[in-house]
């Protein structure tokens, strides 16, 4: 514990990361209290104040229908985090299980599962997500589904590689010798040894999922209006650059803060857990 604190405190970038993540998570949870105009997260129209440059009380300005951009960014954080959490909550168990099976069982199982993973990895992620969204309706749920479909193979690869090396360890043989079942060896012996790496990757990925989700909604394939989303806010404002710069710059900065924060925390975690590879 002391060592953890020491490593974190010593590195200013880790502290910055923690601060950024704290800001994002805190504002997402307490959005209702922080946002000056909570009702602006929906389909509100206020033409009296439309397209205003940043000034009090609209510190980040207003958008084309007069909604407070600051409030919408805070609610967008909530959506992004939820999306990230749900995507990882589905993708990680799937990816980890497949990786363990392929790595531990070997043979044809390994061959089949890893080639399947390779197929998914060989399709550019955005293209895969776009094609899924193209077939299905572009809703938040389908967006999560699309991002999940392209996310699990990375965990399969990660866990597969760790499993391959861990299964040669003495404790795995020792467990097999006292008659442990394959399931026991995979999930109770090997999996706990993968957890540090998985956790590190998850933290890093939370940022990337937010980025990908924003890219999707930038292309109009993700979260649909009037739900606030960082990607679609940037997309809407892009037409009015450079005059109404606040429409794009602030949501863009918000994406930067979230992704940058989670990346720094991921790096810090990597150091703390000793999962450099």
């Amino acid at each position: 514990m002391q060592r953890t604190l020491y490593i974190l405190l010593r590195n200013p970038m880790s502290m910055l990361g923690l601060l950024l993540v704290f800001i994002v998570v805190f504002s997402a949870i307490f959005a209702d209290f922080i946002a000056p105009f909570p009702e602006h997260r929906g389909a509100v129209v206020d033409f009296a104040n439309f397209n205003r440059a940043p000034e009090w009380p609209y510190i980040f300005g207003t958008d084309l229908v007069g909604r407070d951009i600051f409030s919408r960014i805070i609610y967008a954080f909530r959506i992004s985090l939820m999306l990230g959490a749900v995507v990882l909550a589905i993708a990680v168990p799937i990816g980890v299980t497949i990786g363990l099976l392929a790595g531990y069982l070997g043979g044809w199982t390994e061959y089949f599962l890893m080639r399947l993973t390779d197929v998914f990895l060989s399709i550019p992620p955005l293209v895969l997500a776009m094609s899924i969204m193209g077939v299905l309706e572009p809703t938040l749920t389908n967006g999560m589904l699309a991002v999940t479909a392209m996310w699990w193979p990375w965990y399969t690869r990660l866990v597969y590689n760790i499993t391959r090396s861990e299964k040669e360890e003495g404790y795995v043989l020792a467990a097999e010798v006292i008659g442990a079942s394959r399931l026991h060896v995979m999930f109770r012996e090997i999996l706990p040894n993968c957890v540090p790496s998985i956790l590190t990757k998850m933290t890093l990925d939370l940022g990337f999922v937010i980025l990908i989700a924003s890219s999707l909604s930038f292309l109009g394939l993700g979260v649909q209006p009037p739900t606030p989303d960082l990607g679609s806010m940037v997309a809407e404002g892009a037409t009015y650059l450079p005059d109404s710069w606040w429409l794009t710059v602030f949501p863009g900065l918000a994406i930067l803060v979230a992704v940058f924060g989670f990346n720094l925390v991921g790096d810090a975690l990597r150091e703390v857990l000793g999962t450099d590879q």
Partner: protein
Amino acid sequence: MSAPTLRIKDLRLGFQGWSGTVEVLHGISMHIRKGERVALVGESGSGKSVTARIVLGLLQQLRSARVSGLVEFEGRDLEKLKARERSRLRGTAMSMIFQDPTSSLNPVYTIGVQFHEVLRRRHPDIRMPQAREMAIKALQDVAIPDPARALDSYSFQLSGGMNQRVMIAMALANEPSLLLADEPGTALDVTVQAQTLKLMRDLVEEHHTSVLFISHNLGVVREFADRVYVIYKGRIVEHGPAEGLFEDPRHPYTQALMRAVPRLTGGGIPEIDDVSQDYFAPLVVHEGCGEPEAVS
């Protein structure tokens, strides 16, 4: 006479490769009676460890392995047992100790948790407090000074010698009738190794456990075993009581092996020319050491 704890007859093993089958064991026979400590001695690659793995049934799972011959455990042919019955024997009726004790323990669990898992093999409903009590007793038997503290430690917090003793305690916790010791403690330094082996000998004597002791270290074997099989390139070349065999090695390979026991002026690994008369010298069996015939 009851059936020997372990009886192996004409055991052959080959590995299927691209260029045909590579023969590893050329029909070895051996037996271990109840409470007997038998050593299998040979150099690296002579087939010592694979023999232990066949007894445990681990090698048969490999698709490339071709195993034939008889392996009888307490009078039961292991090949005829169902996979489940066979796996039930592991960890209860037979257990194994490995070369490197530290890597044999999972670094993410405390010793106490792993001890609990081992004990659950025999007593499926055992609870943590009970398991702890039994574990403390077992650790006291292997002379671990503060068993409660050891149980709360992780394997990497204990010394190699402590881990080795923990492994011995775990291996004997379920009162197995056969203990396979695959070069135990080779990863440890010599003094610690000697201590733990002495401890292990006392314990197996006390529990009447049969031991198959696999080693390349003749000094250790001489200390530990009642009877010795010398294996060379997949064949048993000499079989005799430990004392007799060390006093009077008769097979050319055993004689060469004895000469290779480290001295300040060591002569390296013994080698017999594959086409020489010596290589084909028949199995030497010392007086009173024949293979028992099937009891049934």
